[in-house]
């Protein structure tokens, strides 16, 4: 445009900009990351078993299905929504796999596709309710959570289904470089989601929608379409997590995907620095949050802390994470600004 009113010198060389960007990114992650490092240090001090390769891999294995769901939950929470139905969808979609295989006798790969489609479909329903039905995400997904839980009990009258193909159950035993497949699966999901959030226009615009939906809409972002896509993705990932759990449990349990899984998913996202108000969060943060939960559960078990007390610790960590990440820091920042200004 011809309106360059005054020439401005370019502020900083590119390398300096890059350094400040890295710094600011580290600062954003610093709370949870420091927490994780401290936690690992304390645990390895308290328990000799903790810092062994086997145990560390074990932690990753234990959290892998939570991590797969947390990737979807991160997208939804950045978008300004919430999905309470993920763990119920996990249970239902694998139950569908087992029922179509056992009772209907379909080829197993078709059953898997039907299971994944079930998860995606419920996610899509969540999306339709939120985007077009104008139902609050909390309420819409609360409803589908109840429905999905009920359906998976109904399908089998509450009894588990056994007798899945051996090759499928064997998948959970396969190890590559000593690490089981589900860990790779989780890492691939997290990396793809992280890259999508950072580089793809659609992923990036989730932040804009979460900060202010009207601003995003008037900027030509197809808000409703994205809501649909993201909720459907979360449902799909829950179904994928269902396959991981099913292979590991050797059966389709109607009780799989209980509410404590759901709470772990949301806890990982929140500990990782996302805000339930939307517009804030990152996939790396969620991954760190996930590891914190994994390390806590594993470490406390190693230390013989009652499993009933473990959620108390996680509750405390959530509060600590939120305070250290946002409020405490911002209070300090405001104070120091006042002093230096």
């Amino acid at each position, binding site marked *: 445009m011809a309106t360059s*009113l005054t020439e401005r010198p370019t502020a900083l060389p590119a390398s300096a900009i890059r350094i400040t*960007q890295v710094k600011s990114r580290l600062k954003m992650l610093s709370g949870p990351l420091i927490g994780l490092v401290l936690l690992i240090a304390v645990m390895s001090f308290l328990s000799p078993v903790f810092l062994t390769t086997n145990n560390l891999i074990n932690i990753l294995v234990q959290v892998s299905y939570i991590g797969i769901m947390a990737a979807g939950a991160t997208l939804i929470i950045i978008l300004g929504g919430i999905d309470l139905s993920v763990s119920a969808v996990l249970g239902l979609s694998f139950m569908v796999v087992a029922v179509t295989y056992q009772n209907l006798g379909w080829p197993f790969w078709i059953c898997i596709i039907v299971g994944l489609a079930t998860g995606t479909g419920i996610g899509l329903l969540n999306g339709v309710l939120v985007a077009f039905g104008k139902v609050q995400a909390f309420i819409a997904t609360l409803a589908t959570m109840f429905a999905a839980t009920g359906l998976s009990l109904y399908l089998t009258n509450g009894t588990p289904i056994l007798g899945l193909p051996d090759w499928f159950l064997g998948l959970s035993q396969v190890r590559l470089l000593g690490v089981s497949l589900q860990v790779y699966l989780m890492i691939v999901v997290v990396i793809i989601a992280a890259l999508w959030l950072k580089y793809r226009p659609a992923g990036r*615009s989730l932040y804009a929608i979460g900060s202010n939906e009207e601003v995003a809409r008037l900027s030509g*972002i197809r808000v409703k379409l994205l809501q649909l896509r993201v909720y459907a993705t979360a449902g799909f990932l829950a179904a994928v997590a269902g396959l991981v759990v099913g292979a590991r449990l050797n059966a389709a349990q109607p009780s799989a995907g209980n509410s404590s899984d759901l709470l772990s998913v949301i806890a990982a996202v929140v500990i990782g620095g996302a805000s339930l108000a939307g517009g804030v969060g990152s996939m790396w943060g969620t991954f760190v949050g996930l590891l914190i939960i994994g390390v806590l559960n594993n470490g406390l078990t190693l230390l013989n802390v009652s499993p009933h007390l473990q959620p108390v610790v996680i509750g405390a960590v959530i509060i600590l994470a939120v305070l250290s990440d946002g409020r405490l820091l911002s209070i300090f920042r405001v104070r120091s600004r006042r002093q230096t200004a």
Partner: protein
Amino acid sequence: MSEANTARTLTGTALTKRYGGNAVLRAVDFSIAAGSVVGLIGENGAGKSTLSSIIAGIKRPDDGAMTIDDRPYAPASPIDALNSGVAIIHQEIKMIPELSVAENMFLGRLPVRRGRVATREMVADARAALADLGVTLDPRRPVAGLSTATQQEIEIARAIIRRPAFVIFDEPSASLGRHETERVLEQIDLLRSRGTGVVYISHRLDEVLRIADRVVCLRDGSKVGEWDARDIDREGMIRAMVGRDLARREAPPPPHGHEVVASVQDLSSSRFENITVELRRGEILGVSGLVGSGRTEIVRALAGADPFDSGEVLVEGAPVKIRSVPDAISAGIYMVPEDRKAQGLNLNRTSAENMALPWESRLVPSGFVTTRFLDRLKRRMASEVDIRGDLDRPVGLLSGGNQQKVLLAKWLVRIPKVLILDEPTRGVDVGAKEAIYEIIRALAARGVAVVVVSSELEEVLLLSHRVMVVAAGRQRAILTREEATPERVMQLCVS
């Protein structure tokens, strides 16, 4: 209702406020007398809000003292100030739409009798306060659905329930049209005639001239002028505010011929009907109308923000379907919305991210948005629109003028065929205003068809080649620059 407060003068001496080492108010002397209006003017950041916050007990001065009728006055809170007879009416109206008018007026101090809200008493008091202002409104109805102007009146009624001796109006007209503003001014006349001392803060100098007995001008935290309102004119005030003269009345460069970029035919919805207008290359079309006339609704429909029922839009001769904002963007029609904070910018995201938002999916051929793309876009726009401030920090930290420039830059990343600007200079200081006018003229000179909607008549008349006047959802006339005198436009607005 409380007893009328009978204080005569409020005086501040050497009022000073610092943030860190940065003085935002420097030894300002100030006084308000009962039964008179002081107009307080100055650019954004000149210290007007700080001064009024100190008087209203929202902030405390670091230095200096205030007295009311020679008694020391040092309010510790707004409630303290209210108890001493000083009330403030804020620029932004904060009402809870679900609550009734009366409940909103008594929010935070609901009258309680035997553990219950004394509704009947509250409604009666609210009714009396509204009647005092000449407003007939059922205090029991919810605020939801009332116009901004009516809400503003409720706000005033709320402030004067306790009969304060002094009332501060902090830019009450910022979101009002001319007609509504006139009603506020009449109410201030009424307060003055009853012996209230009023401070009136506004960017609109005509209003200040119309209402004030004395005018005080701040610049960079210092008082740079104080006049009897009869001794000062617009140009003098502007000179004092900016410390220089502004060439304001220059005509825009003439449009290039009569080539039509877009034509709107019989556009109708529930809020407006039969809008027909041709937008020509390089022409600035002003849209004038009162608040609620449908002027914003018309342009929002054109930009795909709201649906319309019937009518047709042609761009460069070909009909285009506009059902959504993306449709309008592909047709080359972009809109800078009226409310920067709620509609224009994500305040917690950086300026660079805000400017890139519409374009990431449209201007990145690889489909992967890189830091390089963002950096280049940011540098290009910063120099083209002259935005001052760190573009890698949240845009909410910039001044109002620079925020508005970021919002404008967001829609100039790709040059539009039609650019719609709704209230392009709301809440922006005089310097930034001029810069934005410059940009608008330069865009027209490049061949963009610009549509400017504004509640400031002066702005419309200053910028436009032609003016469309809207009243009650109908287009009353399209006037040429020569025909569009302030009187003519106002006459059509109220017709």
